[in-house]
């Protein structure tokens, strides 16, 4: 059930499903159409290049599918010596397909073609391109490697750029919809940011956090995102807390590839650990409080340019707060708030469920239910099983809710058995 990779499951089947890189796609489509219509283009091969996960291979597959080409492909998992390439593809480049479909040849992952094991491979590919009577497509991450120079001159170069954040988010959103997952926009934005233009890695991340869930929130993804970046965060924190100039504290962030919201949480958590003098702590917390106000302003006005003030206050503001403290070695702690948010969720959901039950019966808001009625319910559930059982029936509370209100397994059992007895 979980064995299917979402990168496969949601691989685009047609060109229109491939996100981003519109220019490259249309350039390629035009070129392939010419082949299809029997006009042999000036360049018989297209060389697709760009960073991983930008859709080069899927574009070719979708293109072949859309235009009805039979795709014949080799990639880095195949041996690609001269002999092998000639055997697998050489004939295909000439003859028409048995199925009657025109053919398209794809040499994927050319970066992986190795001098010794794949001896003569590139030479064979050049030979095929020269004599090709069907479209040939080459793919590599870095086309500027000297070994590709002769090939480059023979090919139409098509650049694939990092895919924009919005396009990645759209793609992730589509997957979530198909999987029946409610996704927080901020969570998707975080995944898209982290992917840095690589759609595939974004989908891999999404599957890792979202599979089997009904909902993903920012906290889910932020928590995951931290693990591999802990060292980086520690370094940045050290630089900020030790900075003696604003510019140093600011630079500490610029150099680092860390999520700013997450960095804020780390700083907020560790200010009282880095600084000892209460006056310094108060000044640093005041800087964070000011940064937070700009966050609020951004939420209300959507003016993202204000973000620079958040950065200023949370780095330079915090750094300049220290007059008395000289932070030495600080043992940084993981942001408790993030931990609370990700752990406490089930508890809060339960609380909300009980509040909803109270709301239905008592003509109050869920907030009032939580603050003004639930405390008394707790007292009753902890003191009086009969009264509690009666109220549990009246409010239609389940066993989980009863356990939550009693905070005592034995008491809860007593109440539940009373409920069942009647």
């Amino acid at each position, binding site marked *: 059930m979980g064995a299917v990779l979402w990168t496969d499951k949601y691989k685009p089947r047609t060109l229109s499903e491939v996100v981003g890189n519109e220019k490259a796609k249309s350039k390629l489509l035009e070129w392939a159409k010419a082949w299809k219509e029997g006009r042999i283009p000036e360049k018989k091969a297209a060389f697709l290049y760009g960073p991983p996960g930008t859709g080069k291979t899927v574009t070719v597959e979708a293109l072949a599918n859309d235009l009805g080409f039979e795709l014949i492909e080799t990639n880095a998992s195949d041996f690609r010596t001269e002999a092998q390439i000639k055997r697998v593809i050489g004939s295909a480049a000439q003859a028409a397909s048995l199925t009657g479909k025109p053919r398209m040849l794809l040499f994927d992952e050319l970066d992986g073609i190795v001098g010794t094991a794949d001896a003569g491979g590139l030479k064979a590919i050049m030979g095929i391109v020269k004599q090709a009577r069907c479209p040939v497509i080459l793919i590599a991450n870095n086309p500027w490697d000297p070994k590709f120079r002769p090939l480059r001159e023979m090919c139409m170069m098509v650049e694939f750029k990092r895919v924009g954040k919005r396009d990645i988010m759209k793609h992730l959103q589509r997957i979530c919809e198909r999987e029946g997952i409610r996704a927080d926009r901020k969570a998707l934005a975080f995944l898209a940011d982290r992917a840095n233009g690589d759609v595939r890695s974004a989908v891999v991340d999404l599957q890792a956090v979202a599979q089997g869930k009904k909902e993903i929130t920012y906290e889910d993804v932020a928590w995951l995102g931290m693990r591999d970046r802990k060292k980086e965060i520690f370094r940045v924190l050290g630089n900020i807390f030790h900075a003696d100039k604003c510019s140093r504290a600011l630079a500490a962030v610029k150099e680092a590839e860390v999520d700013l919201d997450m960095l804020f949480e780390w700083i907020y958590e560790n200010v009282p650990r880095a600084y000892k003098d*209460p006056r310094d702590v108060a000044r640093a*917390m005041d800087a964070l409080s000011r940064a937070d106000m700009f966050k609020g302003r951004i939420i209300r006005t959507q003016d993202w340019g204000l973000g620079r003030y958040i950065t200023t206050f949370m780095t330079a503001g915090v750094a300049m707060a220290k007059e008395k403290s000289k932070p030495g070695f600080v043992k940084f702690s993981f942001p408790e708030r993030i931990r609370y948010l990700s752990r406490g969720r089930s508890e809060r959901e339960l609380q909300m469920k009980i509040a909803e039950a109270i709301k239905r019966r008592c*003509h109050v808001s869920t907030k009032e239910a939580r603050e003004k009625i639930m405390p008394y319910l*707790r*007292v009753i559930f902890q*003191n009086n099983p009969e009264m509690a*059982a009666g*109220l549990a029936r009246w409010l239609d509370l389940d066993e989980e809710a009863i356990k939550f209100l009693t905070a005592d397994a034995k008491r809860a059992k007593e109440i539940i058995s009373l409920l069942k007895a009647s």
Partner: protein
Amino acid sequence: MMMWTEKYRPKSLDEMVNQEEIVARLKGFVKTGNVPHCLFAGPPGTGKTTAALCLAHDLYGPEYHNYIMELNASDERGINVIRETVKTFARSMAMGKVPFKLLILDEADNMTADAQQALRRIMERYTETCRFILIANYSARIIEPIQSRCAPFRFTYLKPEHIAARLKYIAECENVELLESGIGAILDVSGGDLRKAINTLQAAASVGKPIDADVVYSVVGHANPSYVKDMIEAAMEGQFLKAREILRDLIWRYGVAGTDLIRQIHSQIFKLDIPEKWKIRIAETIGEIDFRLVMGANEEVQLSALLARLAEYGQLMGRGG
């Protein structure tokens, strides 16, 4: 078994023994079969929601649920609820002999300004088919144009003797022994809030002993632990990390809202054993943070900044580190 607040909630205006003037006016509406848009304003536990439900009952009879819609603005405060749910209800024809339905909008002061603007038009356009009863703690938070469309009703705290009488009546019906000292204690902790008083009574009754002052205070102590006080003290003794821990418990485990916390902190400050001029200085800081709470994105960060200030003041006062 029900919550006693619901079991003993008056069903009809005749059963309402408090807010006499208001009840009399509402009875007048029932008599004429006509109700204007109303704004019920006043502190919690003074009978606003009860009065609205009683009015509906007396107007439409025991099946009044079919003619009214109850919405709580603090749960459904967005403009979409107003534009969709409220509008759909308001524009549909009434089915009974009363030509209009009632929409009871509780905690209306929690509505956003946008939603209130949208509501204003709907109130005007669908007056024939729907009358609104807005319920609010603070009428000032309702925009002027809506206020001017509503008949205002100002609910006041119940008198102690009225609350005491109600408590005695309930205790008798429930066969609970309620002692004079217990009544005094409940009045003390509940102010003029009848709902709080009845909830306290029920929680005290659950202990299973005759209800005296000790029982009441121990129950209230459990229901409202002194976390806020502990938090302030920890901060002022220079234990900022401990204070922040308590803050997190309050926000994340107990779900207390930031604005409520700051209100509680504010009232605690004046009970502290510190020089008087410092109380004013702290109050000023609290006010600043209260403002930032509204401006900011994250309550915990703002309240932590306040705790850090308290720790600083604590040191300056020569307390703690």
